[in-house]
């Protein structure tokens, strides 16, 4: 899709190889899931939100997560990323229990309604670069490859011409794209998007969809995509999961969800 050169991807492939050296695993056994929830139960205080949730997302898999407001989608992802601790059960990232996980560059996270409002002015390039802060640590500056990748994600999200703009002067959709670019800047293996298209027009949705296709096909990223808009994942999602009353229900056929709201509760009937 985009017109970025092959160099971007050569660099990406090299990074990937360096990051995941050939593992000492018996042949035929796959890589661990990028994220795995095992019997996860959670509540805020005494109010239960999630009950014995099991979920594994395989490398390169695209999982869409739907469910009504307040069903616990955001909570589930915060548990997955170690921002909350489960009451019972365990969460693993790339096979490592989340509380011991440290390879955060492999994960990109776009929080829900993070908005980009800011008391101090900050421009698009600064926001995007801030995604590298955890990787770089103190004083270190981005390497040449990292700078090239910053350019690549700016391009991918259509932000090249806006790089010097103050984020507060951007539209909601452009801000959201800046936050997605920030999440992509470490070239993650898992991308978590929490309602990236709420309040975003059709054009920006188009940009997001194209860039997701690119990430899936070329970069092999696993995606967990939370949304209320089935059009955003139709044709892309490998699986569609729905949270209801604290439990995760797998919807057998993703295409059924194009018209989720007109269909009977079992989601399989024909109109």
């Amino acid at each position: 899709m985009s017109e970025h050169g092959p160099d971007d991807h050569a660099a990406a492939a090299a990074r990937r190889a360096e990051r995941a050296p050939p593992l000492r695993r018996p042949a035929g056994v796959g890589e661990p899931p990028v994220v795995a929830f095992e019997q996860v139960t959670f509540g805020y205080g005494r109010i239960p939100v999630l009950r014995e949730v099991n979920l594994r997302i395989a490398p390169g898999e695209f999982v869409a997560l739907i469910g009504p407001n307040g069903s616990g989608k955001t909570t589930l992802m915060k548990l997955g990323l170690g921002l909350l601790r489960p009451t019972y059960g365990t969460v693993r990232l790339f096979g490592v229990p989340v509380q011991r996980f440290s390879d955060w560059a492999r994960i990109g996270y776009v929080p829900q309604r993070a908005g980009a409002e800011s008391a101090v002015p900050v421009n698009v390039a600064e926001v995007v670069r801030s995604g590298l802060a955890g990787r770089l640590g103190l004083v270190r500056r981005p390497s040449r490859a990292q700078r090239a990748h910053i350019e690549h994600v700016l391009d991918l999200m259509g932000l090249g011409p806006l790089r010097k703009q103050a984020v507060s002067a951007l539209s909601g959709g452009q801000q959201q794209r800046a936050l997605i670019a920030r999440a992509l800047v470490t070239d993650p293996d898992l991308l978590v998007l929490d309602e990236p298209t709420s309040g975003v027009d059709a054009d920006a949705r188009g940009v997001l969809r194209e860039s997701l296709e690119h990430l899936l096909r070329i970069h092999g990223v696993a995606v967990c995509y939370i949304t209320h808009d089935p059009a955003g994942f139709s044709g892309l999602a490998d699986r569609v999961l729905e949270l209801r009353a604290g439990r995760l229900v797998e919807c057998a056929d993703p295409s059924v969800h194009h018209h989720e709201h007109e269909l009977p509760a079992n989601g399989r009937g024909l109109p």
Partner: protein
Amino acid sequence: MSMLEFGFMQRALVACTAVCIVAPLVGAFVVQRRQSLIGDGMGHVAFAGVGVAFLAGFAPLWGAAGFAVLAAFALWKLQRSGMSGDLSLAMVFYGGIALGYLLMHRSGMGLNSVLVLLFGSPLNLDWDMVWPIVALAGTVCVIVLALYGPLVAAAFDESAARVSGVPTDKLALVLTIVVGLIVVGGMYALGLLLVAAMMVVPVAAASQLARSYRGTMALGAAIGGSSAIIGLTLAFYADLTPGASIVLTAIAWYLLAAAVRSVALRTTSDAHASA
């Protein structure tokens, strides 16, 4: 006769300018995290530190610095133990001012010295006092610049920063410590009640005009430093209290910047309307 021929003015200029350049560098992160009043609170704590130093008989500057660091740890612990941010601040800060006053009264420190602490007295500094102040400001400057990237990431979006591997928890502690140190650095120059203003006001002024984080910090430091020079000059020739005139100069910068911004916004929207 030029004010620079007076040793006391040279010393005041060095101390005040150092503090007023560095304070906005810290302030940029404090403002972004919506903790604009934390500097004020740290002033309360430093007050207690001076009281302890007086009773124990060591230098007030180091007493205040030590106490500010302790208070930063206490706040961190309280917040991690689940007490709300707001309430833990109030606890530590009111505790500080109460303890400080109690100790100072105990040690027989006069009301005059208390006023010096609260409002500063830059015209009465020896070089022996100026160098520690400059050293504190310099240390704070180095820490902030070294942590610049992670600080920006955490200030802008704490949970995304955490997920990208930034140790946001420790960073919050370091930032609080650094606020304490710059407040202590400005204690004699601007006073505990006024120094916090120099963390916030220059940043607010710079935010009106800058378009980037880096630009805001640079402009904020310039506005802070120039406020110190202009404020002291006014104080010298018009016989004003120095700390107060520095802070009022910074506020004048803010008003000017806000006016420039609104004029700029109006002309661009006119241009759009006529286009």
